[in-house]
């Protein structure tokens, strides 16, 4: 078994990098994408995160060849696959696509669905089916090979979608919110599967999502899109800890804003910050300058206890493994997260102090 696995794995081609330059798209006079530039390294999985209408899906459609750009180029390896005057047809791009709606053809069984891309590449039917069965076996789907799509659960359907996308050893894998239609349990399960398969295949991938934990957990890097423009590209940790503007901060998780003054920067990565008259040594990111006046506080970046600023619990939300407290400190309200069961009640007094802060770049 292991031998067979290896063979399929080695059969995967060397992945090529994707390079998008100055890409703009206009549909029905609406500017959907504007001057987008980014690269994806070989074997890398880039998540595209953005609110509805940010242009995520349109970007995938350009990469898949369904939409022609107004300007800019899309290069796959050293081939230009999209430009205003040249579009390589979708069927000649060598791309794998995992659709939000699964897009399984209702009359084809699992085996023929996965064999389809191989058949279109000119493989003989028997050979294509044999290869498809190998892939299904690797994904643990071989017992389902004779079933029709409507005889599968949502999670199984999407696994078949994944197998089909991997079947033709694509140069680039595109995922369009592949877990959006699944229950929570299947979501996490499939995310892990996708991550694992993409890595073991060594394929370059783009993963569109509007679900932050999903994007953070599957991707090597995250690109935040808003109103058709790139707002930030970075590792999930960078996006979370150092959001470059309000949109990125908003989309990447809860936060509160606090006013303060940087008193000193004893060494790189730490600072002493004065908040409401008290000084706190905190971890900081690189971008904090001496003149920073406004800070982002993520809910788990501090602690409550006996010392710090006096705070009153004005609201709380029990979330299972953690509790979110809403604290009133002077005239600001701040969200603080604590692991475990609730220890405070609404109305109780406590003290809060920050352990980490980030510079706010979102204006006033």
């Amino acid at each position, binding site marked *: 078994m292991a031998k067979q696995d290896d063979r399929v794995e080695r059969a995967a081609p060397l992945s090529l990098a994707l390079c998008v330059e100055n890409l703009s798209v206009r549909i029905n006079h609406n500017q959907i994408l504007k001057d987008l530039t980014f690269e994806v390294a070989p074997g890398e999985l880039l998540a595209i995160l953005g609110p509805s209408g940010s242009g995520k899906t349109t970007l995938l459609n350009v990469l898949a060849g369904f939409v022609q750009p107004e300007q800019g180029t899309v290069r796959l390896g050293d081939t230009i696959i999209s430009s205003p005057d040249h579009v390589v047809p*979708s*069927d000649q791009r060598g791309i794998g696509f995992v659709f939000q709606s699964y897009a*399984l053809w209702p009359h084809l069984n699992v085996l023929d669905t996965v064999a389809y891309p191989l058949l279109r590449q000119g493989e003989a039917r028997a050979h294509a089916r044999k290869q498809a069965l190998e892939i299904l076996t690797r994904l643990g789907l071989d017992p389902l090979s004779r079933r029709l799509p409507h005889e599968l659960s949502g999670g199984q359907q999407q696994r078949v979608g994944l197998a089909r996308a991997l079947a033709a050893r694509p140069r680039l894998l595109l995922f369009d919110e592949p877990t959006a239609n699944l229950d929570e349990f299947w979501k996490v399960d499939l995310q892990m599967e996708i991550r694992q398969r993409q890595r073991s295949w060594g394929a370059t991938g783009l993963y569109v999502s509007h679900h932050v934990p999903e994007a953070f957990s599957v991707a090597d890097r995250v690109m935040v899109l808003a109103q058709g423009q790139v707002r930030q590209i970075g590792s999930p940790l960078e996006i979370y800890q150092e959001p470059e503007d309000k949109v990125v901060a908003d989309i990447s998780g809860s936060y509160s804003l606090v006013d303060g003054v940087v008193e000193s920067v004893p060494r790189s990565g730490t600072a002493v910050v004065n908040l409401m008259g008290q000084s706190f040594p905190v971890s900081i990111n690189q971008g904090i300058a001496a003149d920073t006046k406004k800070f982002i506080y993520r809910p788990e970046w501090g602690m409550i206890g006996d010392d710090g600023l006096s705070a009153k619990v004005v609201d709380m939300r029990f979330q299972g493994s953690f509790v979110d407290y809403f604290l009133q400190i002077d005239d600001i309200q701040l969200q603080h997260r604590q692991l475990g069961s609730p220890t405070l009640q609404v109305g109780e007094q406590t003290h809060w102090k920050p352990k980490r802060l980030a510079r706010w770049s979102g204006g006033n």
Partner: protein
Amino acid sequence: MTRLWQSPRMGGHRVWSWIGIGVLLAIFGIIILWPLGELVTAALAQGLGVVRELATTETVSALENSVIASLLATILALAIGLGMALVVFGLSERSRTWWFTIAMLPLFIPPFVDAFAWLEAYTQGGLSSQLMHWSFSWLYGFWGVVILLAVHTAPLALLSFYAALGRIRGHAYNAARIFGATGTRAFFTAVWPHIRSIIPSIGGLVFIFCIGDFGIPLVLGLPGHFLMVTTDIYQDLSYAAIPGSFTQALSLSLSLAIFAVAAIVIQRIVGTQETTLAAVGAHPWSSNLSSRASKIGVGAVVGYLLFVLVFPFLSLMLTALVRAYGLVATAPRNWTLANFTALIRGSVGLAILHSVLLAAAAATALAILGVVLSEVIRNYVRLAIVQSVIWIPYTVPGSVIGITMILTFNRWFYGTFFIIFLAYLAKFWGLMDPLIAFRRDVPKSLERAARIFGAKAGRTYWTAVWPWMSSLTGSLWLLVFINALYELTMSSLLYTPRTETLAVVVLNAQQQGNVTTTAAVGTLIALLMMAGAVLINVGSRRLRASSKESEVVG
């Protein structure tokens, strides 16, 4: 300017797609726009003659008869249709489908065969007078026409009401019940408003069918000196030698077309107000009739169908079996199959062959046109205008189409099957309309998946679209085939002795008083139609199954 590759099919094949569109539009122009234009031009050319003709007593009285009889028949058909829909809807899901199919059968028997069967069943000397010594003297004339039109169109109303009931969700009804309404009150609060809102559109449809029907007023109206517009046109054209008769037919056609189009326009305007709420995930409403009410309802439906369908059809069959007309039809010793075997030998056999081939050719051509049009409209939304025009001929009475075909094509194709074929194309293209909506519903992602996984244009259609379209295309093919096979109005205007169709043969046999032949052909057609109805039913059930799959997928 960014181009949206709406259709993966189009990539690299634009020249071919434009050629396809050109051919399609040319066909559309030749068989639909041109004839309609000819009708208007001819009317204008006749000028005042047409207007004068419209004001004559005969025209006015024919119009009046048509409108009043059609209105009355419509009201009756709506009542019957709604009653049957409520009863059938109250049954268990399993038995529903069968009862529904059975209740739909009268629609599949050609109107003139139906009328003839009623004559055999309920007139003096018919089966009822032989068995029970009673008969309906009113069957010839106004009431006979009204009742038969209502019987024939009630399934149309049933179909629409039944579909509407299926779309009503249960929560509004349940809410009314929870807040203290009795079952009846809750029905009027939560269900009736939906039904009421679609009455105008269903009524419009039924009215158009009635006013355009030719077979029933011909068989039941003419002998009772009750003239409707369609029969008037037929008479005018039969006596074409009489000066002015063509002008008269022309003005009658125009007035009929105006009525039909007006009814459709009103129906479209009022019909868009349907207020059915389809809440996501809510359960469909179920009428939950008590078992007693259900039994009474089913009893009424059975009684009705025995009266309007089974008994007349039985009478027709007995007439067809009897050795010589006038002998007691219920005595087996008088039975023979000679009438049926004679059909195959004589001119009737040829007519059957003509009709079957013509109907198959028309159905096939229209299936191709329908599929191509659905593809074109899917990709070029602006051409949806074609869709709104193709159903006009279907709603315009066959007599009018017949006249427009004569005006346009008689100079080249007089006395050929081709002119009848063209008339069928023009008349029934509208039946292919559901393909367009269905094509629009094929999930785009299926096509895109095929494209991205390496399929070219043709293969993409074959993988992602055709499996969705095939069963509906099959059902519509059958629908056109059946409609063309029992089409009487147009072929009665367009046929020559060399190009007789099945319906024309029945008509002529009936006019010549050749009752047993008429009955034999009628029986044959009715059986064929009913088999077709069952086939369509099976087809549509397969369709529902495949759309269930689509819910899972899409």
